[in-house]
């Protein structure tokens, strides 16, 4: 398994754990305190910040070939696919509230950072998934290290 695959797996695990943890916390709080207060459990999504550690955890090794042309191609293709998914998601995130609320109404300003986060996570998720799919989920890839 090469560096890109490790990063992709790490991202997928963090996203899955964060969403599971958040669902569990919100569920438990909803049973205990009721719904509006239970939404405080969304704070568990902060664990997604661990995604930023992937370049530190899976560092490039000095003096060793880190990737070849095939890895580069897979990386670019995963970005292309991720952005192909990104645009419908981004457009939907912007247009669905517009259709629901109506053109002359307002939305809470904290919806914007939430949208930013959701769109960003979708992009990372799609890139990680497409990277792993292209490498064959880790089984077929030769280690460059």
């Amino acid at each position: 398994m090469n560096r890109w695959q490790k990063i992709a797996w790490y991202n997928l695990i963090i996203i899955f754990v964060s969403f599971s943890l958040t669902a569990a916390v919100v569920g438990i709080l909803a049973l205990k305190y009721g719904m509006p207060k239970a939404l405080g459990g969304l704070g568990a999504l902060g664990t997604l910040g661990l995604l930023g550690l992937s370049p530190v955890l899976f560092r490039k090794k000095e003096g060793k070939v880190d990737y070849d042309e095939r890895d580069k191609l897979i990386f670019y293709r995963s970005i292309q696919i991720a952005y192909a998914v990104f645009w419908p998601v981004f457009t939907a995130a912007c247009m669905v509230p517009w259709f629901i609320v109506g053109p002359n109404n307002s939305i809470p300003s904290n919806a914007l950072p939430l949208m930013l986060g959701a769109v960003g996570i979708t992009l990372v998720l799609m890139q990680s998934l497409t990277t792993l799919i292209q490498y064959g989920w880790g089984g077929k890839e030769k280690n460059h290290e």
Partner: protein
Amino acid sequence: MNRAQKMARFSLIVILIALSLSAITVSALYLVVGLPILRALAGFGFIGICGLTGLAPVLYKKERGKVDFDERDLLIQKKALLRAYTIFWFLFVLAAMIPFFILGPKGTISVKYLPAMVFGGMVTVMLVQSIVTLEEYGRGKKGQKK
């Protein structure tokens, strides 16, 4: 000038015309006609001209039986896309976070801001992609004709 360059040049011209006309109209409606700024912003309707960029693949069709692009063209295309999305993300984060910091977490913002973000994002990506493509080929002089 190859196909990618022609398409980039066409997109760049269309976007610049749309942005210029919008800016001129908004300014004229606000400063000359004296409309309130919210009504003068209707001049941004000229951004719709950007829809013409969708004609680029039709106007500059791939020629059958001829090699359309090589590895260098592909590399330039990828570099242009990467730079376009790098700038897009920077602006997207600003567009999402600045209203949040100005209005505060309990403030509200007009829902019209959201479609503006989508169009702004699309225009940014197309504009940067076209500029980077033309810059990488050397603004038309060095790009080899296929």
